[in-house]
């Protein structure tokens, strides 16, 4: 049935809000090589040279005190905001809802830096990079690395960019772990820390999901002990790993709202074992699109870096870990996030307050699950903007 909508005689003039896009952005790289540039990793191994892919948005001011470092999560990259070109169907960077002119990470005010972390597969040296010693991809010869190592590399990038001190470090999930590590490793360089939807250590449940994902990759015959050519990935295993991941990123409510129990053909049961429900379709789509843009060995290493992150184990007690921090913190969690549950954020808040730090905390209402930090439609942006303005005022006084 078509609905007849009666138009009013005169339509009110609606002016869309001024939307200003970032200038087309591009990913740049810097390679740290030469004597003294060897990276000493927590695993005891070394890496040399190290290339880092990064993007910047906005301008570093004369006082060089308006830089904000954005740390990405497991499958992210340096492309955090804006567009490479101006094609209509191009997807913007992964945190475009937050970064840009007039947005919470306002590029008219702040100099925003985003880099692909150490061991990534989007331009920074990682398992899929060519090992200069052999001329072949590192694969499983790549050394194990940790969140702490990622932060060391980001610090070198800041030095290269001439940024002595950060107004803020911000990131969600694995990005949030980097934020915590930043405030601990380089307290003198951080004026404010914004860990979102994150934890001081993964729950055994989350480690279990990571292990199932890794097993999915390693049991794919195409994985071949990590020795595969980059155009013949273990696609089934990597796709399966991503499907498992996506189940953990959503919430029960979000799945119910998005897919309900709807069938793909719209009719009903097809009595087949291939995709029949829309939720299955969604997972398969996520899996196959991930395979086109991500490297399987990298997935193995990054999930391990997440598993190994444990501030309590590293420093004895959680509050001891933060005892050297000086900056204000803004901790945010999401009500329906069961992978990095609000309870873990509250533990962070408790430990931070115990050592007398200036802590803000908000458990943001959302039914989107862990993925909420990447999505618009809740108050995370306002909260982040308010905190950054406070940091700016504090820096000025």
């Amino acid at each position, binding site marked *: 049935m078509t609905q007849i909508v009666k138009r009013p005689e005169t339509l009110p003039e609606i002016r869309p809000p001024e939307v200003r896009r970032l200038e087309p952005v591009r990913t740049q790289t810097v390679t740290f090589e030469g004597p003294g540039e060897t990276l000493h990793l927590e695993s005891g191994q070394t890496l040399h040279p190290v290339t880092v892919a990064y993007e910047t948005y906005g301008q570093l001011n004369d006082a060089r005190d308006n830089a904000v470092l954005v740390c990405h999560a497991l499958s992210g990259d340096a492309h955090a905001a804006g567009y490479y070109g101006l094609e209509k169907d191009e997807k913007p960077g992964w945190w475009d809802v937050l970064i840009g002119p007039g947005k919470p990470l306002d590029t008219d005010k702040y100099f925003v830096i985003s880099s692909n972390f150490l061991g990534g597969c989007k331009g920074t040296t990682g398992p899929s990079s060519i090992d200069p010693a052999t001329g072949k991809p590192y694969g499983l010869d790549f050394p194990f690395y940790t969140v702490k190592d990622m932060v060391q590399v980001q610090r070198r990038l800041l030095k290269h960019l001439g940024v002595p001190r950060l107004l803020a470090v911000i990131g969600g999930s694995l990005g949030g772990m980097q934020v915590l590590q930043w405030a601990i490793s380089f307290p003198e360089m951080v004026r404010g820390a914004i860990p979102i939807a994150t934890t001081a250590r993964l729950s055994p449940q989350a480690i279990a999901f990571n292990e199932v994902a890794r097993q999915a990759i390693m049991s794919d015959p195409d994985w071949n002990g990590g020795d595969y050519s980059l155009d013949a990935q273990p696609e089934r295993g990597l796709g399966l790993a991503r499907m498992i991941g996506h189940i953990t990123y959503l919430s029960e409510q979000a799945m119910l709202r998005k897919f309900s129990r709807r069938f793909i053909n719209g009719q009903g049961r097809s009595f087949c074992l291939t995709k029949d429900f829309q939720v299955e379709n969604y997972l398969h789509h996520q899996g196959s699109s991930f395979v086109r843009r991500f490297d399987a060995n990298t997935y193995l290493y990054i999930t391990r870096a997440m598993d190994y992150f444990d501030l309590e184990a590293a420093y004895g007690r959680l509050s001891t870990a933060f005892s050297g921090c000086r900056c204000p913190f803004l901790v945010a969690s999401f009500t329906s996030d069961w992978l990095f549950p609000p309870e873990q954020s509250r533990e962070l*808040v408790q430990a931070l*307050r115990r050592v007398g730090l*200036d802590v803000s905390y*908000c458990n943001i209402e959302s039914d989107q699950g862990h993925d909420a930090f990447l999505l618009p439609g809740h108050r995370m942006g306002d909260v982040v903007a308010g905190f950054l303005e406070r940091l700016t005022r504090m820096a000025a006084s």
Partner: protein
Amino acid sequence: MNAHCVTPQQVDWSRSRPRDRALDRSIVSLVPQGARVLDLGCGNGDLLLRLKADREVEERGVELEPGAVAECLSRGLSVIQADLEESLADLREGAFDVVVLNQVLLATARPLHLLTEALRVGRRVLVSFPNFTYWRIRSQIVFKGRLPVNPTLPYQWYDTPNIRLATVKDFRALCQEKRWKVHKELFVNLDRQDHPRTVRFWPNMRAALALFALERGQG
């Protein structure tokens, strides 16, 4: 949260806004310049913003209602979303110069414990609450036989966040019993525009709202 407590989502806090803001000027007058202030149940941060502007305080807030917390943070305030009592457990003795309990004491399950904890973490504690023996309330009960709904108690019995009732005399008796030092008492009623008018005599009968400034140490 205990089953018998009112969950914050059920309360329309806008109804008590005039009352909650009525004592702001008095509270500000009791806060020293540059003090470290903890506002327990800070709502959307109106009082903290005023304290920052007028007294340049170092502010911290605690609030349970998520929307109000988000508003505080958007306004650049340092606030955590937490249960009031639980939030105090992490704080050291004397961590704050002033702790504010503005119109929240009667909505808590363990007000005595909260006051004791507030006096542990703060040198000075400012407590305000509606006085249940205010003559208008008395007459409503006596003549109408109904529980009062008025500007200082703006909720029906079934939707009120206040699970306690207190009077000026009750509070004085408590302070005496616990040997809390009362630095200052301030009593007001509200005029037709909800502006506070100071009450000097017979506050237990004539004041709609009470504000006590307690200080640590023996009285």
